[in-house]
């Protein structure tokens, strides 16, 4: 299974030594060169194997909201399980942040279910190990905390990009404004998680950890497996104008100033990695 191939990569790069011991345990992955070739694929494309979403073939707005609901199911369940896992340090900032985000994601689920009414869909069955690649809810896993933080950031940034990509499908409907209101909440989450991660790994003043996305940089300690979440964020052309040329600011600054959308297809591919079944 392809997903297994980047197992090791989904660990904090700042914890290389621990990651190495994991590599030793996984004899079949001893060939680093081979594995490096595989990790170029991960988050985006590894999941095209028929784990499609259960979407009714309704209009674009309905499909957009169903995609949104699926992503919210993913996030809501993730944060609930994260908080139940015992992996997050008790009583600290991380727990408070996860609690607040969990509250929002669960509210988004209810809100979208209500909005969709008869077109609502059930939650798929999620597999947050992505077929055994991760073990984020296991307190005995040394990498669990890093994986929880990395997954949270990846989910939030995916959510921001996915909602942005669906805005056009919601134009002229009563759902556009609420979708925008969810979208900016996801962006607040993404910003906070990025800084929280940086704080945990002592990278608080890292320029890629302040809360926004520089070029397609996924941030310090973020596993390479998540790169598909950030590909395309390096865009500096807005409205047909290259803003580096037009403003004299660096490509880094220009790219930070605009978050880029992803298509529904890419959003499904990323989320599909964590969908165990399609019985929704």
């Amino acid at each position, binding site marked *: 299974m392809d997903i297994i191939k980047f197992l090791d990569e989904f660990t904090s790069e700042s914890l290389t030594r621990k990651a190495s011991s994991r590599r030793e345990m996984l004899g079949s992955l001893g060939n680093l060169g081979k594995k490096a070739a595989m990790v170029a694929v991960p988050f985006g494309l590894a999941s095209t194997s028929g784990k499609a979403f259960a979407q009714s073939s309704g209009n674009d707005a309905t499909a957009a909201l169903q995609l949104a609901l699926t992503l919210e199911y993913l996030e809501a369940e993730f944060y609930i399980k994260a908080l139940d896992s015992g992996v997050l340090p008790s009583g600290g900032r991380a727990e408070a942040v996860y609690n607040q985000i969990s509250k929002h994601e669960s509210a988004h689920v209810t809100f979208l279910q209500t909005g969709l009414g008869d077109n609502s869909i059930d939650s798929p069955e999620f597999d947050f190990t992505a077929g055994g690649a991760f073990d984020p809810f296991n307190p005995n896993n040394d990498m669990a905390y890093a994986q929880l933080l990395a997954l949270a950031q990846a989910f939030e940034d995916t959510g921001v990009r996915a909602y942005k990509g669906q805005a056009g499908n919601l134009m002229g409907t009563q759902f556009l404004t609420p979708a925008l209101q969810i979208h900016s*909440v996801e962006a607040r989450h993404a910003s906070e998680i990025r800084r929280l991660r940086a704080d945990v790994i002592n990278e608080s003043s890292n320029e890629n950890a302040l809360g926004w996305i520089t070029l397609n940089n996924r941030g310090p300690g973020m596993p390479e497996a998540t790169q598909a979440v950030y590909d395309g964020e390096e865009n500096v052309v807005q409205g047909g104008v290259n803003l580096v040329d037009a403003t004299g600011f660096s490509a880094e600054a220009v790219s930070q100033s605009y978050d880029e959308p992803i298509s529904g297809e890419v959003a499904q591919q990323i989320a599909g990695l964590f969908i165990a079944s399609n019985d929704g």
Partner: protein
Amino acid sequence: MEKPRIKVDAVTAKPSKNSNSRRKFLKMGGLAMAGSGLLLYGCSDDDDMNPDPMPPGEVFDLGSGDVGILNYAYALEQLEAAFYTNVLDGSYWAGANAEEKRILEDLYDHEVIHREFFKAAIGANAEVSQVLPELEFDFSSVNFADRDSVLGTARVLEDTGVAAYNGAGRLLQTPDFLVIAGKIVSVEARHAAAIRSIYLESDTAFAGDDIIDSNGLDLAKDPQTILSEVGNTGFVVTEFTANNLPQ
């Protein structure tokens, strides 16, 4: 003065140790019923003020349709960019810790880039005369040597930006403009979370219960509400009207 103008009340700015007691801030009243009129009115009793960029007697109107909304966004980005320009010139920023310094420097970059984008985008989509002029601002009520004053103002401006873009999205007709507004609003939300995170005590302030409702929805406000709130800050000196924005 044939233009419909709403009642303008003078109120004294909130007392702060740095505020100029002579300065009067102008507050707009009666906006809700004055559907036809909105005017950001400057401190016209100051004789040392720079001349308006508009010819005498002419007050710029943001316009209608998508151009009107883009001008509205351009006004807000001008405000934010001007604020962070002052922040980076101030002594608080000069002595701030590395993280706060970087955050504020990045926010300056982003808002100036947004401002320049709108200037170019509107210019490409409308007559020169329809592009909002460069606005004049007055930040004398902000103490740029004081962390609370700087970060507190930044928090208001960033949350306002998020609420403004969220509320204006439905007023746009062109899908490409909606997507670009979406690209910007999430960055404003990232800013707002960062400022709240470093400034407010609570670990949940980044998306606090004061702004996110029980459905998990962020703020969304229509242009009239936003322009009224912005007018109340007293930051905007140059007059302009918003009489023709889509509702």
